[in-house]
C-alpha cells in the first residue's frame, strides 16, 4: 500500500498537474469572489468561511477523475486488481495520495487565502482544523465516485454530479465550524459531526469503491 502511495505521489510530482492545479484553482476562485460581491470588508467576513469551503470542495473535485482513469487506461488497474494487494487497500491508498496532493495543500493555503476574504481572526485556527478534519472525507468520497465512473467516456461530469451531493454534510459542518469559531461560539457540535462524517467515510468508502471497481473491471 505504501508502495502504491509512493508511486502515485512520485507520478503526481513528475507528471505535473498533481499539486499545482487544484491549488491554483482554489486561489483563483477565492480571488474572484471579492470581484463578484464587492470589496466591503464586513460583508466578505460574513461569507468567508462558506466561500473557502465551497472553493475547497470544487478544487478537490477537479482532480478526482484522474484517481483511477489513468491507471485504467494503461492497464495497471487490471494488474493491481490481480496483485496480492486487495482492492480495498488500493482504494484507500488512492484516497490517501489524492488527499496528500489535493487536500493537504488546501489546508496549508486556506489561512493565507482567508486573509484575502478578511476572515475573522478568531476563525483561522478553526478553519485550519475544519479543513484538516474535513478534506479526507472529500478524497474518500471522491475515490468512490471515481471508482463508479472509471472506464466511462466523459465520466468527469457524471462524477461531479454524483459526488457533489455527497459532499453536502462535510460542507455544512466544515463551514459551520469556521463560522462559529470566528464568532466565538461553541464549535464542539459541528466539529464532532464533521469528524464523524470523515470517520464514516474512512470506514465505508474503501469497501464501496473496491466493490464497484470489481464490477467495472469485468
Amino acid at each position, binding site marked *: 500500500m505504501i*508502495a*502504491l502511495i509512493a*508511486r502515485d505521489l*512520485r*507520478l503526481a510530482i*513528475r*507528471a505535473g498537474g498533481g499539486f499545482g492545479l487544484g491549488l491554483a484553482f482554489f486561489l483563483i476562485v477565492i480571488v474572484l469572489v471579492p470581484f463578484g460581491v464587492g470589496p466591503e470588508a464586513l460583508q466578505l467576513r460574513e461569507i468567508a468561511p462558506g466561500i473557502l469551503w465551497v472553493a475547497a470542495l470544487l478544487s478537490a473535485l477537479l482532480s478526482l477523475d484522474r484517481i483511477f482513469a489513468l*491507471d485504467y487506461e*494503461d*492497464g*495497471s*488497474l*487490471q*494488474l*493491481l*486488481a*490481480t*496483485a*496480492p*494487494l486487495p482492492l480495498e487497500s488500493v482504494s484507500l491508498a488512492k484516497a490517501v495520495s489524492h488527499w496528500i496532493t489535493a487536500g493537504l495543500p488546501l489546508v496549508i493555503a486556506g489561512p493565507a487565502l482567508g486573509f484575502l476574504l478578511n476572515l475573522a481572526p478568531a476563525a483561522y485556527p478553526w478553519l485550519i482544523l475544519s479543513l484538516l478534519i474535513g478534506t479526507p472525507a472529500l478524497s474518500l468520497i471522491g475515490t468512490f465516485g471515481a471508482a463508479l465512473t472509471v472506464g466511462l467516456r466523459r465520466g468527469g461530469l457524471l462524477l461531479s454530479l454524483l459526488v457533489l451531493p455527497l459532499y453536502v454534510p462535510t460542507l455544512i459542518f466544515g463551514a459551520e465550524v469556521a463560522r462559529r469559531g470566528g464568532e466565538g461560539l461553541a464549535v464542539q457540535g459541528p466539529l464532532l459531526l464533521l469528524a464523524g462524517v470523515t470517520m464514516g467515510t474512512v470506514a465505508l468508502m474503501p469497501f464501496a469503491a473496491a466493490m464497484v471497481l470489481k464490477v467495472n*473491471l*469485468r
Partner: protein
Amino acid sequence: MTLRVRDLSVARGGWTVLEGLSFDVAPGTALILRGPNGIGKTTLLRTLAGLQPPVSGEIEGAGDDVAYASHSDGIKDALTVEESLAFWARVYGQDVPADIYDAFDLGDLRHRMAGTLSSGQKRRLGLARLGVVGRRILLLDEPTISLDRQSVNLFADFLRDRHLGQGGSAVIATHIELGLDAPVLELAPFAAQAGAAGGSDEAFL
C-alpha cells in the same frame, strides 16, 4: 500447484463464448491457447486471473498463485524502468532479481523514463514484471506483440529456464511459435453454440 480447470464456461458481455473446457496445467509445464479472434482467449485468461467470475465450472489452484499479463503493460511513462520493476516487486512483496535486466535486455535502459521507450522496449519491461512478482502460474495474453525475433527468443528463454524450469507453469494465448515444448489447446471446438446465453440475459431469450 497444478492449475485444474473443470467444465468451465466463460462469458463476455453477458454472452457465453466458451463452454465445457477442462484442462490441467502441472508445475513445470505450459499450455498454449490457440483459436481465431473473438473465440474467447482473453476472456478465458481474465476468468482464470479472477478478474471476472466463470459462468459455470470450477477453477482450482489459481487464486493467489497467478500473475496476469494483459495486452496493455500497465507502464507509467513518468517512471524509470528500474522504478517500475521495483514498484511491482514491492506490491508483490518480492525483491527485484539483479539479473532480470539482462534477461530482458533492459540493462542499458534502467534509468530511462518508460515514456521514452519504444513499444517493443515497453513490452519487454511489461514482461520483465513477470520476473519480479514471484508467482507460480503465469497467464499471458499475446505476450509477444510488438516484439522482434530476438526479443521473442529472450522471452522464450526466460519462460523455459527461469520460470518453467523452476517449477512454474504458464497458460499462454499466442499465435506465434515460442519454441516451447508445450501442448496446444485448440479452443474452436469449445466455442459456445450461437444463442447460448449466459448470466442474466437468459430470461430475455
